[in-house]
């Protein structure tokens, strides 16, 4: 049961993030929700590769014992880098929208309606 804790927290985080994206009326909060979902997915990938009492997969002459899977960590690293790029771009869009519209309310940021 205790080893399912990471997966349960992943689900809770994803639900929190999606709640923020669907119900929060502020563009910055939408971006925050997206980042929460992203952290949850990263946590999920890392916890997939966890081995009980494993050591970090960075030794050439390992001291022995099981190693944690390195592939999920490499995937997470890539995903974090992509996430940083996404957040930076979205937040800079928010700055520009605020500069031109004077608001960050999602109900008002819809001049493209129809």
């Amino acid at each position, binding site marked *: 049961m205790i080893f399912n804790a990471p997966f349960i927290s992943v689900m809770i985080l994803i639900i929190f993030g999606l709640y923020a994206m669907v119900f929060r009326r502020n563009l910055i909060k939408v971006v925050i929700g997206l980042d929460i979902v992203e952290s949850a997915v990263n946590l999920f*990938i890392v916890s997939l590769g966890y081995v009980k009492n494993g050591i970090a997969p960075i030794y050439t002459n390992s001291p022995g014992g099981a190693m944690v899977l390195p592939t999920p960590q490499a995937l997470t690293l890539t995903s974090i880098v992509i996430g940083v790029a996404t957040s930076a771009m979205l937040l800079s*869009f928010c700055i520009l929208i605020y500069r*031109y519209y004077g608001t960050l309310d999602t109900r008002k940021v819809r001049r493209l309606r129809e």
Partner: protein
Amino acid sequence: MSVWDFIITNAPALAIAVPLLGAFLTPLIYRAGRKTALIWVLSVLGFTEFLALLLVYLVNTYGIQVYVFGGNPSTLAIPPDSGGIPIRIIFTVDGMSAFTALISSTIGLVAGIYSVASEKGRGAQDKFFALLLLLVVGMMGMALTGDLFNFFVFLEINSLSAAALVSYRIHGGKAVEAAFKYAVVSSIGALMILFAIAILYGEYDALNMAMIAERMYQTGFSAMDMIAMALIVVTLAMKCGAVPMHYWVPDGYGEAPGEISAMIMVASQASLYGLFRMCFTVFGLSANTHSLGWFLIILGLLSMFIGVTMAFLQHDIKRLMAYHSVSQTGYMLLGVGVGLATLGTSAFNQYGLFAMEGGIFHILNNMLYKGLLFLTAGAIIYRVGTSDLNKMGGLAHTMKFTAIFYLIGALAIAGIPPFNGFVSKLMIYESVYQLNPFLAVVAAIVSMLTLASFLKVFHSAFMGPKLYNVKEVPKSMLIAMGILSFFIVLFGIFPNIAMTYLVAPAAHALADPVGYITRVLGGGA
């Protein structure tokens, strides 16, 4: 080893490496002047196009191409000490991949030629061309890769560069708003795909599509697979703009510059490729393809009908065309969905395969005429300065070539023979009505409404008294539109060329997941 041998051996990798390197060198080379940078960008795009053509030739001649990064030789998919698992990143190029790579690089080249004149005198062009090349990288990568995580990375490259390009002209904040919406929905979608990839990785301990499909077939389709499949299929359907997840499409396409709209339209066709690849190759052997096919058919019907009816309402030329891309995507989903729903039954050989060929042919045709229409819309906006159809009129008096090109595109999209749109629509009508006549009825009605709304654009933009005293657009824009028009007429009069070399290999490759899997897992030799 001569240069020629080197290119042939490494063609799949070069098709990504050349535009990627070109993208990051563009801002540097731009320091040496705009002309030098343009020559650089166009030669990179031209070489990419050549590589895509080479891939099509190689696939048609020698079958599925497998390229292993870091493998020695580069076709060694399963190293002897790996325990039978393809551990390296593998590019697998079959007919459908080569087809998608070809249309991606073609629209990139055309957009590059077009933007020589259309972007002249605007700021930050070094970044513009770098992003344009990156968008080509994203599309090509999605088409060529055989690795799920790699697919996610290229999907993100695709969406990030496309969102940045949408916001390139700020347009009073509207373009930024569109780019924000596009980026948010693409990012949440990409995260869902990553989540699904993690589920599949945790279950099958592999990232290679062929390996996952093989192990899924052996162990049976589990509940977790179902969740992963739903995440991947729905996200990719959203990325290709299927109703009811199409809301970002009119925003994104409508606010981007003309040539970028054409490119994003093809970028969403790359997502469509991803959708088909996942449905057929990864899940096709294990999942219930009948209900999955019907899911695609229903999405396709909704997209066709709601897309075209919403398009009729619009009075912004780009938004109107954007809704039409939603409706055209519906045709492809319908055609290939019928193929998927009948996969494995006797009906597949009677009409299913033909429906798939129609859907895939429609991807090619849509790239040609929709790209052309977006380019003509860009040309109109370039001269008139507004995208509002209510303020336009009488442009055919002076912009004669643009009017002719527009007419070719409009007739092609409405399915008037002898242009290319008719052929693929005929193929779709004739095959889908055998599954259910209602499908063909909706498709035919949608085609009529398409013609009506493009007549509306033609009348209000080109006909009537001369309201603007404008000149014809510069030569490079005309050349770009001319290339697409040439292929529209060519594939309209000689559809068998496209059928033999592009469409039929693509449809057969999709319909044969076992061939794909054995080619990769059989050592790739």
